[in-house]
């Protein structure tokens, strides 16, 4: 069985020192090893942005796609080969701006993949513009007088879109984050994990210290029940989205793939490409 070190390659990330994404990378590597994966059994698909580079920093099959499109690519990979563990990942711009349409639909479609968003509330790679996660009033290069738009609440959106696994974490909580990613991988369906991953270069508001002060661990809320969607929604709203832990999980709903009529039980890559002459003739005869 592979150790987390076997999920390391020899590429040095081009993230800034102190970037939250380093911990996300480490957590994915640890979670993959902890759930018993081999590097070749994992495909990491990522979008564009600082965080999008992550597929190149984990030793596994990696696909660094197009801005905002990591989810459709990842779903396609899983449809082709359901034996692979597929993780999609990217930043908040990737998932909640240009890729928001895909995020909502991937959530409601519920294909068995894990989606990890590295949420730094800013556009880092393009050097500091506002993101859909930037708070109202947040000053950036593109909002010099402060953002006049409302920030998106990914947890509320996910819950209302029919998510079966919704979790949030903070990049410095390596242990918690690793455990959440493990749970996400093991969840049978679409798992959505938002990770607060501070940008040390362009976001001087939502810093490590800011998160430490403002985040509440769900584990500390007495009686919190992650199978209760209503409670999940209410708790997220009460805390303005600043909670960490598994917010909601529905283990009863079957994944998309379990619901597809006739879908191959093993990887579709093993299916015979040639039709028999008999089955072709039958198909053709329907047009006579």
């Amino acid at each position, binding site marked *: 069985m592979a150790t987390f070190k076997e999920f*390391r390659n020899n590429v040095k990330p081009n993230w800034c020192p102190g970037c939250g994404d380093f911990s996300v990378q480490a957590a994915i590597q640890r979670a993959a090893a902890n759930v018993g994966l081999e590097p070749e059994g994992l495909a990491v698909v990522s979008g564009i942005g600082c965080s999008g580079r992550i597929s*190149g920093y984990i030793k596994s099959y990696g696909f660094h796609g197009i801005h905002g499109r990591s989810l459709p690519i990842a779903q396609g990979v899983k449809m082709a080969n359901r034996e692979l563990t597929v993780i999609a990942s990217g930043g908040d711009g990737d998932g909640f701006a240009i890729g928001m349409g895909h995020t909502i639909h991937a959530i409601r479609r519920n294909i068995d993949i894990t989606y990890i968003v590295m949420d730094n509330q800013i556009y880092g790679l393009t050097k500091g513009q506002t993101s859909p996660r930037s708070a109202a009033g947040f000053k950036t290069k593109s909002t010099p007088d402060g953002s006049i738009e409302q920030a998106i609440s990914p947890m509320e959106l996910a819950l209302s879109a029919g998510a079966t696994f919704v979790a949030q974490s903070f990049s410095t909580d390596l242990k918690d984050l690793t455990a959440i990613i493990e749970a996400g991988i093991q969840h049978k369906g679409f798992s959505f994990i938002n990770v607060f991953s501070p940008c040390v270069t362009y976001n001087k508001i939502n810093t490590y210290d800011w998160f430490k002060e403002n985040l509440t661990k769900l584990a500390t809320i007495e009686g919190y029940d992650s199978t209760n969607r209503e409670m999940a929604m209410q708790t997220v709203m009460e805390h303005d989205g600043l909670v960490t832990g598994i917010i909601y999980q529905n283990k009863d709903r079957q994944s998309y793939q379990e619901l597809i009529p006739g879908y191959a039980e093993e990887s579709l890559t093993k299916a015979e490409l040639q039709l028999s002459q008999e089955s072709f003739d039958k198909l053709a005869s329907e047009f006579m």
Partner: protein
Amino acid sequence: MINQLSWKVGGQQGEGIESTGEIFSIALNRLGYYLYGYRHFSSRIKGGHTNNKIRVSTAQTRSISDDLDILVAFDQETIDVNYKELHGGGIIIADAKFNPVRPEDAKAAMYAVPFTEIAADLGTSLMKNMVAVGASSAVLELDINVFSEVVGEIFGRKGEQIVQKNMDAIKAGYEYMIEKLGDKVGAMKLEKADGKKRLFMIGNDAIALGALAGGCRFMAAYPITPASEIMEYLIKKLPALGGTVIQTEDEIAAATMAIGANYGGIRALTASAGPGLSLKMEAIGLSGITETPLVIVDTQRGGPSTGLPTKQEQSDLMAMIYGTHGEIPKIVMAPSTVEEAFYDTAEAFNLAEEYQCPVIVLSDLQLSLGKQTVEPLDYSKVEIRRGKLVTGELPALENGEYFKRYEVTEDGISPRVLPGTANGIFHVTGVEHDETGKPSESAGNRKAQMDKRMRKIEQISFKNPVYKNAPHEEADLLIIGFISTRGVIEEAMARLEADGIKVNHTHIRLIHPFPADEIHPFVDAAKNVVVIENNATGQLANIIKMNVGNVKKIKSILKYDGNPFLPHEIHSQCKELVENGYIQRVPQ
């Protein structure tokens, strides 16, 4: 006795015009006639004039006719819109219910037949289209028993009684019309057909069947006219093969999901029309630079933007050849018949895997939706070739190195491993990358990788990239076309030949990389060259000029009013060109 005629049924959309045409034509196809259909419809569900024109012939026909023999009208609008198409010997059969008025300048005779009333007397006015089928059969002097099989198939699940009632409606329409026609019975009696069983399908059926035959097991698509039939067919058939279709949230997701699935190791398809292709352009670029196979069907319709959603056009050509920013290797095929649509779609999956690049199958609305008789498809001609796909065990990789998925090779094509393979780990990125897929911006690497990618399709092997019907060594005229214009060009060519003009015809099936060597000799051997296309700027003509020169010799006949060419339009303009050296008449 006649050997071909054109029949048209029209009325308000949602009134059963489709099913009238369907029953009539399926029965005729089973008698061994060759049919070729053209649907005129609007981008709405209910209301609006719609009609279905069907040519019936004892010989293969791939064109709509200049004129019309029989018009079946369910409303006055149908008569007003279409009567000018009818020749002197033609007839209008109209539902008496709307008190049809024969236009004063109509050449054709009109018969008012109480479709609705006869149907209502037999149980329900819904069967008025069956009465119309019966009345039409009387004109052709068909034995109405030919309909019993089709009616049984369509209404069988509703019970024997419904089947019988519909047959009664056909019979009643037939008998009424025979009496009305009086001594004119037999004026349009069709020669007996050969009785051979042939397929009756639209191009989209053939594309979808070709995809199945070519090993496609997954499709991601977004509904759009005129491409949706492809996904609708595949969702019915793929489950039996372990696969499925996902209707995605948008066209971008459709294309990128198909890329993910191809990368994952299966043959996956996406299909759309122009508006969808505009959105898929970023994915096409991704497929190109990541060398991930991708088959995309573009069923062209009137553009730009939403354009003419239900009308014929061939104006996506340049976008399909050059579309996506930057430069990638790409293959663009353009089947010209339903048969070719089948074989070419199956082959597209081979080319996509062999050359590891996007392959676009370019259709157009008339090919995709025109229902027609098709010669039997030979499945033994379909082969599965997967190119440099690595299937055996791989040697261990050294020191955390990656597999050289983008190895620079002589032919530019690198070995391809599927995710899940031990010792095959590599990275994929839309960023310029080195041989293992890791991002690299070095100038040397950039040039090596770009050259490698572009080199791939220089050597593409494609059987019969150009269809040729070239009986003359030296021709007065070379006609060049692509996609659905093949039939209408053939028909015009026969008329030009009858006029004593020596005509060669080539139809381009491989658009990109352009088969310049194949076209060149024909251009050189012709006094005049004309390119026929459904667009306003002569895109194909420009591509030909770019590739074979002869800029002054190559002329265009263009039509972009939303309708397919008619034989006489091509005939008269070509004649003018040969006689005068130029075409004076403005088309349309």
